[in-house]
């Protein structure tokens, strides 16, 4: 090393000895702190909400959820029509939308994106079970051909997997991977932002997409910092180093509410906690036993005691806020006498069950303990079995359990997401019918509802299916949870959409500090 190098090291050490200046983020930079790095940013591959934070910011879809509503409106598509059978859908693409390299979004790009999605055939492609072919009619017109009528089709076009990807990404293809490796950490969309850099496990920087067709976002940059420890995240928020923090425990959320510079966002969501009861396994194969258990749960006690009021009891399978929800639907209530009577009627005695849970959701263990206490009152013994989350999923998928808690969120805004997954006898195990519920009448109703387009008729079918299934009590309907995160009061313009948990409308948000 030469002399000047040594001198520069000396200067560096000198500089290092001056005190740290305040590190508040600039007004046009938003810092979001969360616990984990998103797995990937490839819309064809990503299935976690954490990754959706990136895919929704970087890409546009043909249609999108508008504001706080669960209904879809135009995004890339300015209009669309369907034939009477619901098999052919034609979309007109609005002019002026551009990818972040300046090339226009056209019908060929739409076809490319869906061909890629269906060829990858990873998780996101499951939203399109009947997609046969995408056809380019002219540069601004694209046509989708389905093999069977699929009522939620237009709604599925708003999901993360339906993002329109710039066909030029194929320049980054390696070993026939359809640019999967590159898209995992980069973006090639027409959304308001693009991924500028990604330091794994440290931070992701989103920059404005210079070619975005909408109005220029106020936030020049969005930085997602990965901060594993919840106390550290909280300190960053109160110190002003982070503008939004996610995954805060309920008791900490309560404490944060006292800080005037912080707003705790708590919004009703379609994230439900329910309990699968294995309908194939005696004595839970007897509807009377399941009903008895449904009456033995102290729903309000769980919501007040465990959730500190940040939830409400489910009413049927379709959550409130989604069409197809039945506000008059039957709700089981905490009634020990009725539970005892039903159990006596069933003739089953000496019942011993296991509740298999993991720590994936912090509510599952206390809910299990509450359940254990109330079931003891009707003479049912419940053992709590804690396992790793992957083990729990595997046991559930294979039907090797008595009772197990579960969480569910819809991917798109259609009762299909609940009814057809939970009750179709053809979807037992992993895919969704995790209580192994088999009622041919209900299966018929939900299948019919998925294959017709008339929304009023579909609603009637789903409500009838809910009535029948609630009576059979295949699941314990525990609660719809609030979605909670904390932001600095200076962050303005956030719009909560129950379909887009952990997804922010960065493009229309701003800071006033």
């Amino acid at each position, binding site marked *: 090393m030469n002399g000047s190098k040594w001198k520069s090291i000396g200067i560096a050490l000198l500089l290092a000895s001056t005190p740290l200046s305040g590190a508040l983020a600039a007004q046009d930079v938003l810092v979001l702190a969360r616990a984990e790095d998103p797995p990937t940013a490839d819309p064809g591959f990503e299935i976690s909400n954490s990754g959706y934070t990136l895919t929704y910011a970087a890409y546009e879809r043909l249609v999108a959820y508008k504001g706080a509503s669960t209904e879809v409106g135009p995004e890339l598509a300015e209009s669309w029509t369907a034939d009477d059978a619901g098999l052919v859908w034609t979309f007109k693409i609005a002019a002026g939308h551009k990818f972040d390299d300046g090339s226009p979004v056209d019908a060929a790009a739409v076809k490319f994106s869906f061909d890629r999605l269906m060829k990858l055939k*990873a998780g996101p492609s499951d939203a399109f079970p009947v997609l046969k072919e995408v056809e380019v009619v002219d540069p601004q017109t694209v046509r989708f051909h389905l093999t069977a009528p699929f009522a939620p089709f237009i709604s599925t076009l708003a999901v993360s997997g339906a993002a329109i990807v710039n066909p030029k990404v194929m320049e980054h293809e390696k070993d026939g991977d359809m640019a999967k490796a590159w898209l995992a950490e980069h973006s090639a969309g027409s959304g308001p932002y693009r991924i500028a850099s990604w330091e794994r496990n440290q931070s992701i920087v989103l920059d404005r997409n210079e070619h975005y067709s909408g109005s220029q976002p106020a936030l020049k940059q969005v930085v997602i910092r990965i901060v594993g*420890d919840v106390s550290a995240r909280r300190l960053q928020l109160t110190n002003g180093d982070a503008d939004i923090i996610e995954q805060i425990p309920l008791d900490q959320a309560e404490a944060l509410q006292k800080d005037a510079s912080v707003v705790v966002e708590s919004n009703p969501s379609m994230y439900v906690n329910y309990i699968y009861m294995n309908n194939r396994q005696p004595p839970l194969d007897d509807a009377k036993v399941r009903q008895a258990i449904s009456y033995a749960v102290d729903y309000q006690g769980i919501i007040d005691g465990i959730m500190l009021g940040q939830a409400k009891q489910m009413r049927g399978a379709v959550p409130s806020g989604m069409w197809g929800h039945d506000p008059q639907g039957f709700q089981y209530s905490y009634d020990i006498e009725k539970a005892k009577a039903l159990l006596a009627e069933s003739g089953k005695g000496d019942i011993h069950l296991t509740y298999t849970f993991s720590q994936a959701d912090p509510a599952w263990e206390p809910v299990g303990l509450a359940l254990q206490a109330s079931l003891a009152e009707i003479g049912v013994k419940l053992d709590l079995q804690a396992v790793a989350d992957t083990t729990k999923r595997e046991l559930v998928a294979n039907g090797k359990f008595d009772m197990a808690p579960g969480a569910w969120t819809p991917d798109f805004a259609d009762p299909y997401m609940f009814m057809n997954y939970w009750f179709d006898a053809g979807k037992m195990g992993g895919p969704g019918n995790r209580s192994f519920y088999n009622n041919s009448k209900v299966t018929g109703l939900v299948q019919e509802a998925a294959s017709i387009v008339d929304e009023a008729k579909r609603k009637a079918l789903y409500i009838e299916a809910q009535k029948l299934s609630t009576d059979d009590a295949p699941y314990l309907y525990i609660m719809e949870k609030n979605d909670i995160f904390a932001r600095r009061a200076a962050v303005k313009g956030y719009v909560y959409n129950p379909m887009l948990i952990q997804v922010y409308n960065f493009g229309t948000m701003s800071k006033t500090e």
Partner: protein
Amino acid sequence: MAITRIILPRLILLLFVVLGVAVITFTISHLIPGDPARMIAGDRASAETLENVRRNLGLDRPVVEQFTIYIGNLLQGDLGTSLRTNRPVAADIRTFLPATLELGTVALFIAICLGVPLGVLSAVYKDGPIDQVARTVSVCGISMPVFWFGLILIYVFYAKFQILPGSGRLAMGIVAPERITGFLLIDSLLQGRFDAFRSALYHIILPGFVLAFANMGVITRQIRASMLDVLQEDYIRTARASGLRKGMIIFNYALRNALIPSITLLGLALGDLLYGAVLTETIFAWPGMGTYVVTSIQTLDFPAIMGFTIVASVGYVLINLLVDLAYMLADPQIREV
């Protein structure tokens, strides 16, 4: 030569260790219930999608075949592809290992710089007030939980007085220097990036000190004990009798001999640093191997877990080898054996 006699068997041993670790981790990963395909495609994936993902990952092949492929790739330096991030595990490790090594090196440096003098003073002024203080500090270091100590420091230095940053390796808005060694402190200096150097230095102080603290306790205790032994030796008494200066006796004669048993300790300390790093990295959002392996375990990302285990075990064997070599250099008698 004696050196080749020591090194060669170790290198052969290394091969067996890697193979053994690969067999064990591979077996465990196939015994734990949990389907990697389900992790990738999502819980509610359809049977066809699961089948497709399984085929793409080669999980539909017989276990023995999967293992043969894994070992074959391993011999070519390919650790497989992470299920979670979709990146080669080797690339992930190249990204995260330097951060952990940098943190560990700084922590070891702090631990030695504080632990050795403290141990010496403690022995020289045995039972005096300095000794009491040193012993208290070392007990605290050994018994204080890393996460608790870390949070206290974050609270005091970051939240309360805003003297030091509480997370990450660099301040926001500072572009990382081009990667040469992966050590930000070194890379930034080599490129004359003083802003990055300063930021990196500030960021490493708290996690470095937290990680150093436990090891400092162990080092202090060890140095104190071996110094006390050495100070009883005849040659020290002779040196004293011949009127040599006290400082000369302590540093030139006593400490040098007291350090020999500490070499093993330093090897162990280095291993401890890797363990401690997992917790420290989580608290300080340090993007190193610790956080990587924790998230990999949470998501049952087997290729990543196996890659980490293999790299860590190679590291251990190499550290042991270095310790033995250091012994030989320090104590000529061992060279003769």
